[in-house]
């Protein structure tokens, strides 16, 4: 075997030149078997340097290239591109990091020099065993999967769907609209939630680029930005499945509500006329607020922050809708007395303060209780016990409306597992950065919007949906090509025992089990070449294409010599 290995040492300005005796390195390396030539250059990553390398590859008829310079994170790709341009397969190249690992680390010049020689020898030894690997290009899939058909999911879908881009909208319930559909009115007096959401639903249904799956759930998802394979379980059955391919996923699974039965002090489910906000909302939609006996209430207590202590966070929207309820009651029932029990008032937006002041002027009483109130039965009526500055007091009322905390929607953790995206301490999906990157997840191509991320009001949810759509627009440009990883894992069939240990460690879901052959299979389009499966396989049946045992053995042998 006649290898022509070319070794090039970069001076990196003064960085390497001043701290390593490059001439000594060249001298030692030149005499090694299969090394055709060893040379130094002032700055290989410069245009002159790249030109020099390309010419050398051709002139010296190199079969392999070793560059001793900086970290692969900085210039591996640069030199691989040089190889490609010069007609050398870029995987027949090895970059040795003698800057960060030798020059910058070791003050003694002799020591740094001998370490650099060792590492370069290791690289030469390894590169001789490199195989030419072929890059593949696949066209990006511009389509998008949106999980959840509430206001966030609808907004995301409507923003994205177009001539070049299909949206698959998967909704668990029988119809679109989510929680917002149940709201009787929006703030301040922007018409009912129903009419706003109806408009969006109609738009989505009429958009031929949006494919809607109701009563359906995402069953499996694997892949990466530009190339996800998704299985959707259709029509609430286990048997009907549909495979779809998309380039990005937006999670818009919304929220659930804290069950007030879990805090016995509110008497919910035990005492008549103790309602949740959603039940009250239904009465408002119906246009009539009535007690169980059919009479209109003469007094109503609104209780904020139900479950806040248990959940550990403010749900952001309850103060305003409780004020909305109070104003509604005052406007509809002339002689009703309304008391709002809160612990802290949350009025973040510019119009909120005035909305609250107006409510006070309407004669609504706001009581700031030191701690959570207690609701008890008191004859035909209901007693609400509270405490102001240490003093116990109570009122009696006909009706109590509870504002329960928003909680992660059912199935959130299952979906997080499936998509490999994290949850935060509250159980909602976790954004990459709350302030700087609020709709991205750590998995490229997977975004989360609206109440899937935690309590959000409707304007925030819409902004986030549009933000995620923007992110997808700029990264999933139709026609763009992506290169799947070349250095993937491969499973040797005759060694694989089918113990499926590799399946449990594959972060990308790239391995599946073939029950007919009784062995594991790697999906090369999804594998990212991380090597976890190679390490865990008890039978040594998996190998990584660019990190084979002989390559590593030969490399380590020299590095430890």
């Amino acid at each position, binding site marked *: 075997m006649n290898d022509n290995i070319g070794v090039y040492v970069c001076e990196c300005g003064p960085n390497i030149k001043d701290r390593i005796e490059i001439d000594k390195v060249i001298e030692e390396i030149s005499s090694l078997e299969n090394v055709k030539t060893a040379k130094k250059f002032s700055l290989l990553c410069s245009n002159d340097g790249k030109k020099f390398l390309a010419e050398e590859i051709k002139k010296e008829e190199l079969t392999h290239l070793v560059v001793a310079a900086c970290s692969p994170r900085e210039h591996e790709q640069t030199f691989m591109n040089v190889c490609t341009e010069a007609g050398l397969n870029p995987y027949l190249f090895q970059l040795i990091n003698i800057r960060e690992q030798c020059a910058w680390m070791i003050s003694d010049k002799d020591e740094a020099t001998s370490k650099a020689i060792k590492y370069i020898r290791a690289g030469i030894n390894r590169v001789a065993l490199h195989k030419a690997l072929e890059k593949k290009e696949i066209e990006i899939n511009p389509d998008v999967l949106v999980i959840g058909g509430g206001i966030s999911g609808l907004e995301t879908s409507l923003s994205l769907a177009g001539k070049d881009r299909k949206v698959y909208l998967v909704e668990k319930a029988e119809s679109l609209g989510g929680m917002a559909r149940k709201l009787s009115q929006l703030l301040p007096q922007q018409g009912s939630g129903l009419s706003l959401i109806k408009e969006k639903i109609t738009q989505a249904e009429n958009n031929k680029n949006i494919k809607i799956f109701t009563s359906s759930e995402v069953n499996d998802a694997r892949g990466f930005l530009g190339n996800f394979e998704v299985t959707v379980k259709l029509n609430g059955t286990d048997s009907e499945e549909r495979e779809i391919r998309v380039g990005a996923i937006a999670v818009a699974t919304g929220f659930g509500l804290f069950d007030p039965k879990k805090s016995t002090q509110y008497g919910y489910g035990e005492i008549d006329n103790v309602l949740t906000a959603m039940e009250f909302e239904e009465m408002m939609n119906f246009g009539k607020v009535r007690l169980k006996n059919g009479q209109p209430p003469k007094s109503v207590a609104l209780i904020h922050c139900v479950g806040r202590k248990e959940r550990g966070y403010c749900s952001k929207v309850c103060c305003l809708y409780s004020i909305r309820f109070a104003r509604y009651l005052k406007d509809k029932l002339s002689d009703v007395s309304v008391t709002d029990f809160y612990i802290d008032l949350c009025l973040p937006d510019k119009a909120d303060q005035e909305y609250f002041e107006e409510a006070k002027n309407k004669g609504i009483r706001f009581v700031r209780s030191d701690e959570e109130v207690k609701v008890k039965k008191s004859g035909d009526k209901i007693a609400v016990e509270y405490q102001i500055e240490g003093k116990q007091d109570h009122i009696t009322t006909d009706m109590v409306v509870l504002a329960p905390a928003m909680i992660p929607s059912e199935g959130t953790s299952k979906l997080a597992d499936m998509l490999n995206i994290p949850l935060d301490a509250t159980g909602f999906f976790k954004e990459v950065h709350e302030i700087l990157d609020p709709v991205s997840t750590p998995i490229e191509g997977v975004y989360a919007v609206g109440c899937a991320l935690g309590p959000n009001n409707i304007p925030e949810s819409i902004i986030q949906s549009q933000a995620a759509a923007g992110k997808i627009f700029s990264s999933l440009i139709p026609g763009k090509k992506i290169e799947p990883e070349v250095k993937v894992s491969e499973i040797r069939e005759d*060694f*694989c*025992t089918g*113990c499926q*240990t590799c399946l449990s*460690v594959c972060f990308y879901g790239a391995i599946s089990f073939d029950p007919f052959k*009784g062995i594991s299979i790697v999906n090369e389009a999804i594998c990212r070449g991380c090597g976890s499966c190679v390490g865990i396989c*008890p*039978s*040594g049946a998996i190998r990584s294409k660019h990190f084979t045992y002989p390559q590593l053995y030969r490399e380590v042998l020299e590095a430890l010599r």
Partner: protein
Amino acid sequence: MKGKALSAKEGINKAIIDFLKKSLEKKCFDALLIPAKVPETESYAWLLLQDESLLELANPLPPVMTVQGGKALSTVTKHGEMHQSVAAVMRPCEVRAAVELFKLKQNNLENITLISIDCPGTMPLSDYTDNPEKMTKAFENAFDKWGEGDNLRPICQICHKFSLTSLFPPSPQESPSDQNEKDFSASDLHIGLLGGNKEKIFLMPCSTRGTELLEKLELPPQDSLEKWESKVKEIIDKKIKKRNTFNKEWLTKIGGNEKFIAVFDECINCHNCMRVCPICYCQQCYFDSPALNLPPEAYLQRAEKRGALRFPLDTLLFHLGRMSHMVLSCVSCGACEDACPMSIPVAQIFSVIGDQTQKDFNYVPGRNRGEPLPLQVFREDEFSEVEIPSEGEETSTGEAEKNV
């Protein structure tokens, strides 16, 4: 704990066979996987037995272990579920091997009822083939001595897992809520021999499957197991003591490079130990693969470097490689030692090392089906004592020093 006591006036074997016969008759099982004497020879093999009349050949506790039961069961069920119900009657170490293979998906226990029996040990295979009659007799005596007999395999003499596997507490990494019966028993039914004075055997259900079996046979587990329990405990304590002394002795015998190399010096590289090991389940052993075949010049180079090169080559590498691959799951069944033509005490060495490494991971191989293999579990807090603390972490430095 309660069980069902059955009379064994006509011998333990007969009592167990009668019980199995009854369960076949009552259609509790369609077949049995059970050791049996090979007609016209002195040897034993596994039978997948469907015809009740052949049960007279069966011997649930033969004097030798010719083929490890876990391996036999894996052969039968590796490629899928049994469509008929089968009871596998095995020694506790064989059941534990089956459980390890279950975790590695090398068998399918869907329609399998695992029945374990208190095991006094077995005779060394080579001693038995030399003189079957004498060794059979010696084996019968083992039922009186429970591990005290000199003729038993050394590995059996120090075995403290000869009875019900659930006697070992679940590992701390499992929360009690996970402990459903299916996951937390190795066998479905255990047959206790101890404390019965050879007049009684005790059936104890260890899973829903085991409970249903006794219900179907109208053998309600209502008898006291006190005698069995106290006897088992007594022998476990005795064996653990013996095992500890034994481990210490072995560590002085094999500790350090030179001694360790010397033990394996006699190896002829036949790989029998790997072939009979139930845990060595790889399709192709790396050490049998062409990866180890080098070009002639490579051998010459190595010979030049060392002065001489001995063949067979890489025998120590083979044993170390095999050990690092399987020792966490090693159930100390002794099959490897029985199979070694050079009488290298492989099982004893692997057992000593296994005890240490399994303890490090708080893992008892084959204790139950729900306990994950240590190498498949990542716990952030494990092995902190070998971590080198970074500068400035004073508290952890202190702890690390203490642990070292």
